[in-house]
């Protein structure tokens, strides 16, 4: 067991081990959806929600099904299936209850299924041997960190619309450069706590 305080873990997963800025996971929707702050926030919430719950589900599956039966090596396929099923469930619920959000997220909600940040968090949890409480803190924190990064990027992109970007860099090029700069900035937090 890893003795980290869940609150420390929560803060670390936002600042020093941010899924996007430190691990570069979940880049596809990060780049594609960051055109508008409102939509980014919506997707960020969806990712946070899915991350928190899939981490819990996967923890329980791993701890109470896979470990007792010595089937740890099945974790990839089990995690992926449970994430896929959960996203599908969330999609149905969002479509019914929050049509505007559902519409804004469009194709991206199903894309969360293969968002590597989500599988990444579940795998980190297993590799780093977190407890249930730690896993929840880590999953939730990673989601918050992901949301923060995408909303920050959307804000920056809004400014970019009004500035002159060299032709060859427009679109994904400048986005990756900005992401790199943000990552450099976040490295400044690395003295706070290290969890890897």
């Amino acid at each position, binding site marked *: 067991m890893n003795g980290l305080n869940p609150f420390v873990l929560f803060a670390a997963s936002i600042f020093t081990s941010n899924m996007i800025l430190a691990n570069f996971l979940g880049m596809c929707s990060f780049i594609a959806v960051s055109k508008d702050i409102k939509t980014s926030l919506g997707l960020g919430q969806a990712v946070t929600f899915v991350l928190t719950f899939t981490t819990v589900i996967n923890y329980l*599956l791993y701890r109470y*099904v*896979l470990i007792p*039966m010595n*089937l740890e090596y*099945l974790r990839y*396929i*089990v995690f992926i*299936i*449970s994430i896929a*099923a959960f996203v*599908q*469930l969330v999609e*149905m*619920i969002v*479509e*019914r209850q929050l*049509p*505007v959000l559902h*519409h*804004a997220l469009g194709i991206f909600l199903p894309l969360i299924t293969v968002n590597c940040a989500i599988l990444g968090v579940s795998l980190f949890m297993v590799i780093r041997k977190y407890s249930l409480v730690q896993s929840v803190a880590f999953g939730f924190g990673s989601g918050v960190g992901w949301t923060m990064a995408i909303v920050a990027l959307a804000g920056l992109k809004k400014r970019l619309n009004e500035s002159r970007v060299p032709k060859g860099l427009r679109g994904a090029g400048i986005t990756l450069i900005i992401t790199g700069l943000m990552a450099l900035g976040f490295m400044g937090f690395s003295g706070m706590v290290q969890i890897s």
Partner: protein
Amino acid sequence: MNGIVNTVAVMSGITGFLAFILTLARRTVGDYGMVEITINDKKKLEVRGGDSLLSALSSEKIFIPSACGGKGTCGYCKVKVLQGGGAVLPMEEGLVPADEIDEGVRLACQVKLKEPIKIEIPDELFNVREYSAVVRKIEDITPKIKHLVLDIVEGGEIDFKPGQYVQLVAPPYAESDESVQRAYSIASCPDDKGFIELIIGYVEGGICTTYVHKYLKEGDHVNFNGPFGNFFYKDNDREMIMVAAGTGMAPILSILRTMKSSGIKRRCSFFFGAKTRDDLFFLDKMQNLEESLFDFEFVPALSRIGPEDDWEGVRGRVTEPLMKHMDNVENKEAYLCGSPVMIDAIVKLLIEKGMDEKLIYYDKF
């Protein structure tokens, strides 16, 4: 051996459990049950919920005009929703003006049916039907424009007002993997109920025009629906001024043919704009109409004709002879058909001449 059985059992158990949960969710959260649509306070329909309003109406044989096939990009399928449409989506705000949104106008393709809904649509949309037809004739009348005659199959008949349009359905074909609908004005006379004529110009990269120009052959089956549109012949005794360019001749031709067959005695002039001699068509039909109609004059104008070319008609833009003719706007009404740029320009000129805006009817292509 035991290991394999265990693995398979665990995986099946987990997957089976998740599948069970999802099926349960589909039965509860994903099932919207039957939803009632009330149209214009008189017609009630009972449809399966969860679909878009547009597709639910079309499966009930009520056709709302739509060019993009429900993707929310053309903005044609406007419907007034009085009750129960859910929140307005950001996509609609881009296509429906703010004052119309305040009145409840929505895009039918974006309204999901989840609760009883009350809508208002123009009465004439009840008249809209889906027709299947066979291409009797398809021929080039200019290098870029084709004339089509479509026979409605199985003795079907269409009722329309001269000037209205239909939507032709281009099925998926070699260069397009989706079915699209495009609007084309009817050129034939409403008295001929068993067939319609269309005049279709080629648009570079256009899905439907490419289909018509490169793939459609005589004897082929096509589908169309209609009639739509509020640009049509108005019955009164004002003098008629008609202006069109290119394929915009279609609705005007329909109006002229109607006047001929009904023996209507009104003075009318048709100003037709084209670039070169090659872009002119149906000159014989126009000459025939000039001879048979009560008082009709056809004025073609060519804008790109060299001084050395042989051309007895007007040289330059169609606006010049038109403006000369419109020095007196008394007791005249105008029918315009063409590109938005052309129509906006002519409407502006006519209003400057003192014409009442209400007497200018137009159809922007």
